[in-house]
């Protein structure tokens, strides 16, 4: 039972972490190399890694998507998609895709004369299933080593922690004021049942007795 419990909590923690890691904003310091637009087929399960910029895009099997090609300070390539999130999840309310593409075009630079920019994005890059993080903002960087403090993430995670704390407080208050009084009334009845159960437990002493008692728990109860 303990392994089931731990597996459950580990999986839950992983899902929560992955969800936050995908949706919260992150910053990369990159050099914009180029931008391009490519028709994307959106008919399979990886659809969830693309946006629905407008109302009809949910029903389209393929459509054009803008991309921003960049190189990171460590020389590794990074490609972002550039899509509106609109009023949908995640709640970035991005409507300025065309303007962002223009800014990216304006920031293009070469390896010989690099112009470093900070790209704010959410999402994951995975070559094998061809998914791209969505760029939501671009601004000039102080340099390739600029230290970025993730204020937005600090605020969001703190707020989430406060909300969880509040839910716990509300639950405890509900239990104290509503459930416990009911349980107290029922307590006396339960005590009587307890006495009968204690007497039954006496009979099932010893390892063999306990084993037999355990076996008995698999028997069906007589129908009333």
């Amino acid at each position, binding site marked *: 039972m303990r392994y089931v419990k731990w597996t459950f909590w580990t999986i839950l923690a992983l899902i929560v972490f992955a969800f936050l890691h995908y949706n919260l904003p992150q910053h990369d310091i990159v050099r914009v190399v180029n931008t391009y637009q490519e028709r994307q087929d959106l008919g399979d399960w990886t659809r969830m890694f693309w946006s*629905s910029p*407008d*109302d009809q895009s949910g029903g389209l099997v393929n459509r054009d998507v803008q991309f921003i090609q960049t190189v990171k300070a460590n020389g590794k390539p990074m490609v972002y998609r550039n899509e509106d999130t*609109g*009023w*949908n999840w995640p*709640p*970035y*309310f*991005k*409507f*300025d895709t065309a*303007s962002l593409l223009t800014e990216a075009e304006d920031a293009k630079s070469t390896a010989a004369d690099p112009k470093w920019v900070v790209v704010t994005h959410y999402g994951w890059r995975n070559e094998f299933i061809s998914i791209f993080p969505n760029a*939501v*903002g671009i601004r000039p960087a102080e340099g390739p080593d600029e230290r970025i403090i993730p204020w937005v993430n600090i605020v969001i995670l703190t707020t989430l922690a406060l909300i969880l704390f509040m839910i716990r*407080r*509300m639950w405890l*208050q*509900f239990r104290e*004021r509503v459930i416990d009084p009911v349980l107290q009334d029922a307590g006396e009845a339960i005590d009587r049942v307890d006495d009968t159960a204690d007497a039954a437990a006496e009979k099932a002493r010893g390892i063999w007795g306990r084993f037999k008692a355990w076996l008995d728990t698999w028997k069906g109860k007589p129908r009333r």
Partner: protein
Amino acid sequence: MIGFLRLAVFGFVGLTVIYFLLSIYSRSVAREELEKEWDADHPEGGDEAARRAYIEAGMREYESGLRKKLILLVYVIPVIVVLALIYLTNIY
């Protein structure tokens, strides 16, 4: 446009649920505070009817007080956050 309406409708429903849950919680905390105040002033327990009257008077005060109105911020803050996000993402 449908996206905006969907967000507005579901957002309003969700915030209303939160509003009512917070109202219940806040009322419960206020009542508990009154009970504890009375019990601290009357270690012997005091008159049961007077205790009830004291708590009901305190609750009437709570119902018209600022604390209850502050729960309406549940509707205000998310709207401000969304407007701020739209400004920061698109215009700033």
